[in-house]
């Protein structure tokens, strides 16, 4: 399935081979294989219930938290199977960060929200270290100028768009290698959405980014690679420009042109 032209293959960060996910007896994802590039933004698109979010949650083993979920197949981060014994889930999630559909800042101060990850993983040796990490993360998330004078205020008191950028800043505070975004703009207004998309573009190259979206224009705007999912299978995967202008599969074309979904 990962049959994009070999001359454009960039360095692969994560690979999935024949990944299937079951919730109890129900199969939500059917044998999906994909390579995620280090330098690109990869978008997963498809109608609701197509398995794209389920697939995304395999990359940092968030499906572990769902009692009935069972994952089959192989997912590798830099060649190491994330489900193997030598991959600790705590370290995996430090290396593969995640941003959720609804902004979910902790009911703590802005500063403490950012400091949460570094504290857990012991990344800062001193208060000055931590201050630096907080400032750096907020700067990279484009939030520093808006919040630098109110770092002690609660993260839940900000606007929805600011909260989501705070969550992105929180994720990059532990300097991950991959950032997974699960429909990060679906709860935001168009202006906040534009800011997040801008931010994704700025973060590209520094982190491998995988974004799930049901907004096709968004996928077209922010991603270089797009995978189209339908009914638990990956229908097509390729360069975003190809998928949106000249899809190989008729199902992809129907979805892109708004025939269903």
């Amino acid at each position: 399935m990962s049959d994009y032209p070999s001359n454009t293959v960039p360095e692969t960060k994560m690979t999935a081979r024949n990944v299937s996910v079951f919730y109890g007896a129900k199969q939500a994802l059917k044998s999906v294989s994909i390579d995620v590039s280090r330098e690109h933004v990869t978008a997963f698109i498809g109608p609701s219930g197509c398995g794209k979010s389920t697939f995304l949650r395999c990359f940092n083993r968030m499906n572990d938290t769902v009692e009935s979920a069972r994952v089959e197949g192989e997912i590798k981060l830099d060649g190491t199977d994330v489900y193997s014994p030598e991959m600790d889930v705590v370290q995996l999630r430090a290396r593969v960060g995640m941003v959720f559909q609804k902004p979910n800042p902790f009911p703590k101060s802005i500063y403490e929200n950012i400091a949460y990850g570094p504290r857990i993983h012991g990344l800062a040796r001193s208060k000055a270290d931590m201050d630096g990490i907080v400032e750096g993360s907020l700067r990279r998330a484009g939030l520093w100028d808006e919040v630098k004078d109110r770092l002690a205020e609660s993260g839940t008191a900000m606007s929805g768009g600011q909260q989501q950028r705070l969550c992105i800043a929180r994720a990059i505070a532990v300097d991950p290698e991959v950032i997974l975004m699960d429909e990060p703009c679906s709860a935001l207004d168009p202006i906040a959405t534009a800011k997040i998309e801008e931010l994704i573009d700025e973060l590209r190259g520094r982190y491998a980014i995988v974004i799930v979206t049901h907004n096709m224009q968004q996928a077209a705007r922010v991603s270089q690679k797009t995978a189209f999912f339908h009914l638990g299978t990956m229908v097509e995967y390729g360069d975003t420009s190809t998928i949106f202008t000249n899809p190989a599969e008729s199902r992809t074309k129907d979805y892109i042109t708004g025939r269903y979904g």
Partner: protein
Amino acid sequence: MPLSLIFLVLLGLGLGAFALGRSKGAAMASAPGAGGGGRIGSVHSRPNYHGAFVALVALAPALLLVASWAAVGDGVIAERVIASVPEATRPATELDRSAFMNEVQGLVSGDMEAGFNPDAEVAAKLFVTTRGTYNLIVGALAAALFAMGGLWAFSRLRPQFRARNSVERAVKWLLVASSLVAILTTFGIVMSLVFESFRFFQSVSPVEFLTGTTWSPQTAMRADQVGSSGAFGAVPLFWGTIFIGAIIAMVVAIPLGLMSAIYLTQYAPSQVRRYLKPLLELLAGVPTVVYGFFAALTVAPAVRDFAVSLGMTDASSESALAAGLVMGIMIIPFVSSMADDALTAVPQAMRDGSLAMGATRSETVRRVLVPAALPGIVGGVLLAISRAIGETMIVVMAAGLAANLEINPFKSVTTVTTQIVALLTGDQEFDSPKTLSAFALGLVLFVITLILNIYALSVVKKYREAYE
């Protein structure tokens, strides 16, 4: 004719009224002019509503009459009976009158074979005949009201008559009345507490009661009696109550309850949770007197032996620690279930956010979930405290009666509830400060738990709003 019979007859008649109204309603619905065939709108209400309307209008006034007579009737009859006694021997004081009437009632019911008072024998006969006459009058009046109401209601039945709306309104008022019963009863309890406490505070100053440190409620019955000074400083009682209910019990219940809630909500697989949670809540259904046995017979001796082994030779077998420990166990399901609610109310997204940062489960619980659920947990703890300080059986059986200001948990202390029980058990005169002090204690307990409950509920409510 006894009132209960009148009551039953009325109910029977009510059934009849229902049947009549219903059949008229049914007849209207199937009448050819009404369109028939059960078309909606031809007859406004269904036959059952017509029947219920007739029965309600007929029954309500008649039953009200019978009920009010049942409430005041005995008083009216007693008045008549006492008035018939010759003036020379007529009971004069309130106490004499009630004693006399008790005797008369005893004779009437056959519990007593002969009266001490010759007048009572005469009065008993009069009582029976008077009661018979009055009941007959009431029965007749009730029947008349029933007939009037029933006929008027029956005459109003028309296809377009809105019987359903009237019945619905009656149902609403019935429900309002039912809920008022609970509220008015509470109000009555509070008023009686306040009233009796007021009588107590006429003989003992509130300041002495609330700040005094000596509790010795034995008052002299005779002026020359010795050793019954009567001191009503309730501070040792308040201290004992707080020491057992709010300190020792909470030291046990808060950590254990919170940790079991954390296990149940965050760690337990759903299968385990399904069986363990009801099992834990079963603890809340154990009668407190059983906890009392456990405290007095098992825990208290063990605590005393432990104290002795520590070198406290004067350790009491009734200790604050024994009562507090068992009360803490009793409160665990309460704390656990409140904490469970609070933790479950924290959005899943919060938990996911923390886990996705690479936090372990215990880090997530400690750093995100418990802080986020804290207001709910605090509210639950406050409710648990208010429950613990009002708890009676365990402390009566295990805490003892000595009103000590003592912070050694191996010593005996007493609580407000224990003292109330002690003050009101056995033969008591109801106008001595000793007995009345129980009401003042009850009032203090009531006010404290009320404040705790209101505050706790407002904390919990505010917290719920934050996540909706």
